[in-house]
């Protein structure tokens, strides 16, 4: 099974990203609000200071006293902090800077405009002009502190946000991985359950109580009840089989006794033979159904061993070749590439698959048809193909013929019980092999793809069970 890596589709990851985004936005907004409140507060203090300074100069009596005071003050004032500019009505300006743009009301004037230098783009002054004595007094104070406060707040925002973002992202990634891992185990268990391993369960920790654990518990409960259901169904079918087989056995016994103990006319003997044949057919169908149930149960997997498919194919072709030959069919057996064609499975069941497919091909093609068995392999898989040049199976019927007891209309009259291909399908599924029915133009090609044996498994000769 392919486990998906971390993807943007993961619910916890999406939640993390969304919440992180909301958090960043809301933090930025609240910091911005705080910044603007602080700034306007600071600026109003600045405005008060400037107004007070202007009032101080306005309170000075006499133009000469004003000019003297200004000259003294200008001499000791740092232009970086404060600018004083007085433009008497009929005289040269007294100022600690060269020209200064006149300002009506509070104005923000950038430093560049004052000294033409651009040391710091953000440097600016808050300026106010007013009429004082016989002239225009402009006082400007640096806004540097306002700008500095903005910078400090920005650093506060960044330094405050960074650990939060990192922490949240890490927690989100961790939660995502944990959830992914849980989802993967749930998926794996569901896959095992689907493939018939009814004992598969999702591991659940005692103190783990999240929503995914709840789902895991629910999956386990479902699997348990399904397992119990299947067990009881199997018990019931075993009981039915036993109950029905005993009377069938009795019929066979009675017929056999008639055959052995009674002198019959030729016609009667013929009827008896027919009755025996039909009994035999009932029994065979029964066996096939029971075997099918057993294979689908999956317990046979416990007995799996490495099996060389080439040996199996050789044996079955050898076994059926004589019959094919007598009936005018030709069996062609080719091996493409070099072996080993070793798969992990049950020798007898795999033999049965090949025998069923070959007999199926003979049954549904005209005498003289060519039937090909081909075995090939690449690094990852081994492919077994059985191909005939008969009438084939229409595409829309291909799914259906794998169902038990389903038979094509045209083949109702031929031998067989409609279980052969179902058995093949069940055995393939048991071996994790994929089965496909294809058009061999004309005819049917049955392709079975096995996974090659993992290298870790020891390759021993084909295991055979003998009764000695």
């Amino acid at each position, binding site marked *: 099974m392919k486990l998906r890596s971390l993807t943007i589709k993961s619910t916890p990851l999406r939640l993390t990203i969304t919440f992180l985004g909301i958090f960043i936005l809301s933090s930025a907004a609240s910091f911005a609000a705080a910044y603007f409140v602080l700034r306007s507060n600071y600026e109003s203090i600045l405005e008060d200071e400037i107004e007070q300074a202007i009032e101080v100069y306005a309170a000075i009596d006499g133009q000469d006293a004003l000019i003297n005071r200004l000259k003294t003050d200008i001499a000791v004032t740092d232009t970086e902090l404060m600018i004083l500019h007085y433009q008497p009505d009929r005289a040269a300006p007294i100022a600690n800077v060269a020209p200064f743009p006149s300002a009506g009301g509070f104005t923000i004037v950038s430093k560049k405009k004052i000294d033409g230098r651009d040391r710091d783009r953000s440097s600016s002054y808050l300026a106010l002009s007013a009429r004082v004595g016989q002239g225009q007094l402009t006082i400007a104070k640096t806004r540097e502190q306002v700008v500095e406060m903005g910078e400090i707040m920005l650093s506060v925002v960044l330094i405050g946000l960074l650990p939060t973002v990192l922490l949240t992202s890490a927690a989100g990634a961790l939660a995502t991985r944990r959830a992914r891992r849980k989802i993967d185990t749930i998926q794996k268990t569901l896959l095992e359950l689907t493939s018939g391993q009814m004992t598969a369960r999702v591991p659940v920790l005692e103190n783990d109580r999240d929503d995914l654990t709840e789902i895991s518990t629910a999956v386990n409960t479902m699997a348990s009840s399904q397992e119990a259901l299947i067990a009881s169904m199997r018990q019931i079918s075993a009981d039915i089989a*036993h109950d029905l087989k005993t009377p069938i056995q*009795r019929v066979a016994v009675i017929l056999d006794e008639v055959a052995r103990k009674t002198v019959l006319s030729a016609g009667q003997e013929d009827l008896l033979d027919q009755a025996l044949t039909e009994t035999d057919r009932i029994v065979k169908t029964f066996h096939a159904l029971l075997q099918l149930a057993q294979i689908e149960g999956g317990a046979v997997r416990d007995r799996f061993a490495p099996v060389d498919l080439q040996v199996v194919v050789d044996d079955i072709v050898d076994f059926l070749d004589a019959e094919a030959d007598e009936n005018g069919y030709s069996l062609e057996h080719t091996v493409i590439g070099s072996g080993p064609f070793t798969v992990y499975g049950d020798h007898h069941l795999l033999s049965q698959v090949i*025998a069923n497919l070959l007999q199926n091909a003979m049954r549904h093609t005209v005498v003289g048809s060519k039937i090909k068995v081909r075995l090939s392999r690449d690094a990852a898989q081994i492919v077994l193909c059985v191909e005939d040049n008969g009438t084939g199976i229409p595409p829309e019927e291909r799914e259906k013929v794998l169902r038990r007891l389903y038979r094509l209309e045209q083949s109702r009259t031929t031998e067989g019980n409609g279980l052969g291909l179902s058995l093949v399908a069940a055995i393939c599924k048991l071996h994790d092999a994929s089965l496909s029915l294809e058009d061999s133009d004309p005819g049917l090609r049955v392709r079975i793809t096995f996974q090659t044996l993992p290298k870790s498994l020891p390759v021993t000769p084909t295991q055979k069970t003998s*009764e000695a």
Partner: protein
Amino acid sequence: MAGFTPRQIFKDGTIMKILVIEDDKKTGAYIADGLREEGHSVDLIADGAAGLVQASVGHYDILIVDRMLPGIDGISLVKTLRGAKNRTPVLFLTSLGGVDDRIEGLNSGGDDYLVKPFAFGELSARIGALARRPQMQDEPVLLKAADLEMNLLTRKVTRAGQPIDLLPREFSLLEHLLRRKGRVQTRTMLMEAVWDIHFDPMTNVVDTHISRLRRKVDKPFETEIIETVRGSGYRIDTE
């Protein structure tokens, strides 16, 4: 069909003491009657627990045990017997016919396994095979039947001095029949022994193989060595 007589199977007249443990009365009686007609001494018990006691004390040559029994089931019965070092050959009868059931039966200590319903001929032939499981004697080099000779070392077959060319599987088939001279081998027994096939191939494939073998071994000559036993199988019997 009427021509069938039990004596055809047990020509050498070996008389065996057989215990049948089978809960279905009709089937049990059928088996017991048939075996008695063949001259064997047969006891029939319908209960597992009673069967276990009888099998332990009765010194039987063969046990025929149904897998599903009231009291103790067949598998446990045989396991208990084997645990007590009782090596009497056991033929299991069963209604189940799955791959697992067969192997479980054989693993528990059973020697052979027969799925119900069966023809009496099949049962009789399998009992014959169980009673005389080949002892590991000196391996013979030459197998003979009338004027047919099979050399196991050179793998050459001759009849009346003429060499016969056989395919490997035909050789195995003939060898199997020759080694069990006088005993009927059913189609299923041949399929299991010669091809290791344990499922029903739904066709008479074995008959085809036999008829091909006959074409080489019997047809060119006056007498037939391979004999068909109606309702049972095949046998080589030249005495």
